[in-house]
């Protein structure tokens, strides 16, 4: 449950038994060939896994390095998140629980959770900041269409952080029949390991695909980092490959210097948030500071504890990418490759393109394209001014 000084369980005693049960169930499940076979089948037939590894030829020509994209945007529901929810939902069934709860910011993890709940016939309640339910009304509709209850959270800043508080509160009250399907590699142990275990297929697949396609490993693996599930998902397979450099790109928001960002590792201090010791954006007293990013999925003041550890040990490097740099990368990818990625993923790509300038020609960069951009078109319109009037 710990990585160095990071991780652990900073939660009410009331949850400890459930966390112990979860840890035991998860460990047993991973050791049970029937479970892993079922999860594998589910991923293939329902989740559309493995996702393709794609060589971005035109982008590579422009940048002078080989840019390879792990196309998680092509998964069912449009992001790597399906891996996590399918794993946890199958585990929920195995534990005999009949209901899941989840927190969501922009709504992507909520939609993924509602999807898995519908698939497995589980009850589902999603906590979402009231502010976010307004900004992401279409995702609220998706969840409701899938049969989930969406509870607008009216406390605190009424965003993701508060939705997570509310989910934790609700979990204490319903823990006997309810699994808290957490959406990233954060929270109390065993969640960070568990979510990583269900997401690590990204890297396991990509590593094998890369070897098969190029006969080598990538020089650099890049991913965006909010909570960090997609990054841990792709990093894990490469942790022991000492020559493969790992880069996590955090949301630089309005610009790192403005203080309005979500660059938790770069700018945060060690603290405790949502059940784990990790880097946290906090003030002098330890009160959580609101984060800022054009990407709702990265707009979180904490980060998974394993990332904190990888940063502290130097195994992975973390740098901020601001809104403008991310959006430029998003546009570049759309125009050169015909792929509209999520704004989250555009942070990873933007970071990789920045790195590329310092790499030797022909170096191989693997970027986790963690999700598709359909959900972000409202932001894109606002940012680029692509409104109809402009061209009409």
């Amino acid at each position, binding site marked *: 449950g710990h990585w160095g000084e990071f991780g652990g369980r900073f939660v009410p005693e009331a949850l400890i038994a459930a966390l112990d049960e979860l840890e035991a169930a998860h460990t047993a499940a991973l050791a049970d060939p029937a479970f892993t076979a079922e999860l594998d089948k589910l991923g293939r037939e329902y989740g559309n896994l493995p996702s393709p590894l794609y060589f971005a030829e035109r982008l590579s020509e422009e940048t002078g390095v080989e840019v390879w994209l792990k196309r998680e945007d092509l998964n069912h529901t449009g992001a790597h998140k399906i891996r996590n929810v399918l794993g946890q939902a199958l585990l929920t069934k195995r534990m005999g629980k009949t209901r899941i709860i989840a927190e969501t910011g922009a709504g992507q993890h909520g939609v993924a959770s509602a999807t898995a709940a519908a698939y497995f016939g589980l009850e589902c309640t999603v906590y979402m900041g009231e502010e976010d339910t307004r900004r992401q009304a279409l995702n609220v509709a998706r969840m409701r269409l899938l049969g989930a209850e969406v509870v607008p959270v009216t406390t605190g800043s009424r965003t993701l952080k508060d939705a997570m508080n509310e989910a934790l509160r609700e979990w204490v009250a319903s823990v006997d029949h309810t699994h808290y399907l957490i959406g990233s590699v954060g929270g109390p142990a065993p969640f960070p390991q568990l979510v990583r275990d269900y997401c690590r297929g990204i890297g396991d697949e990509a590593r094998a695909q890369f070897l098969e396609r190029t006969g080598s490993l990538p020089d650099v693996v890049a991913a965006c980092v909010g909570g960090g599930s997609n990054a841990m998902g792709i990093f894990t397979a490469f942790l022991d490959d000492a020559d493969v450099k790992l880069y996590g790109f955090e949301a630089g928001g309005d610009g790192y210097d403005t203080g309005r960002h979500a660059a938790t590792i770069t700018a945060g201090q060690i603290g405790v948030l949502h059940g784990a010791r990790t880097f946290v954006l906090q003030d002098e*007293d330890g009160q959580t500071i609101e984060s800022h990013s054009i990407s709702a999925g990265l707009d979180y003041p904490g980060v998974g504890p394993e990332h904190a550890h990888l940063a502290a040990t130097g195994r992975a490097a973390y740098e901020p990418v601001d809104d403008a740099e991310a959006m430029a990368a998003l546009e570049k990818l759309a125009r050169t490759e015909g792929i509209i990625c999520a704004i989250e993923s555009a942070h990873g790509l933007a970071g990789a393109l920045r790195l590329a300038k310092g790499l030797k020609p022909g170096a191989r960069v693997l970027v986790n394209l963690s999700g598709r951009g359909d959900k972000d078109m409202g932001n894109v319109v606002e940012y680029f001014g692509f409104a109809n009037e402009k061209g009409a």
Partner: protein
Amino acid sequence: MHAADAFAKTRAEERAALVGYLPAGYPTLADSIKAVEIMIDHGADIIELGLPYSDPVMDGPAIQKAADQALAGGFRTRQVFEVTEAVAGRVPILVMTYWNLVERYGVERFARDFAAAGGAGLITPDLIPDEAGEWIAASDAHGLDRVFLVAPSSTEERIASTVAACRGFVYAQSVMGVTGARAATSAAAPLLVERTRKHTDLPIGVGLGVRSGDQAAEIGAYGDAVIVGSAIVNCYLESDDIPAGHQKLAELTADLAEGVRR
């Protein structure tokens, strides 16, 4: 003064202790001091000062609101020592706090400054003994009480190890859920107290949901302390002004104090 001093008195009187909770800095810094004095004047045996935090995952709407208001009013962690110093001496003063605030202040430094202010100890709702190495050392060094929680879901093993790490009393979370005044107290509470008693001679405080003398009497029949929080905060949330809140608090505390004395 430590929790043990209060329990020595209440055990002698063969009754449960009344523990009153209020976030420091709420409704204002000065009025939180005043409120504590009111509670002591009307029969509270122990005071639990909440440390307002941005992300109080154990608390229900009432305490969240009070904490938000205290923070919006500019409350800073170090001010909890001012409040403590102002009210210490008559009854034990414990601070209930989410752990990040203490880590950020510095565990050793917090223990030192709090002890210096006359504080009795900490109640730590999101810190379990397993993660509490630094705090155990600091509380030992500064002679502070250490109140960890047990819950209905705790295994016998966990109850045993948790109470072993406690000093002053044990906090029994009587319902699986957040803080908040409830119409009925939990049926799980007596069972949890009974299970906990098998593992310790420490007093056992029962929290969550109490809002009347009758409920206090009911819990006082099996618990060593009756902890009241949301109902106290509600005195101010539901009043038009602070003086009215003080008045309500006086009445509520008197009712609760009568309850634990039945």
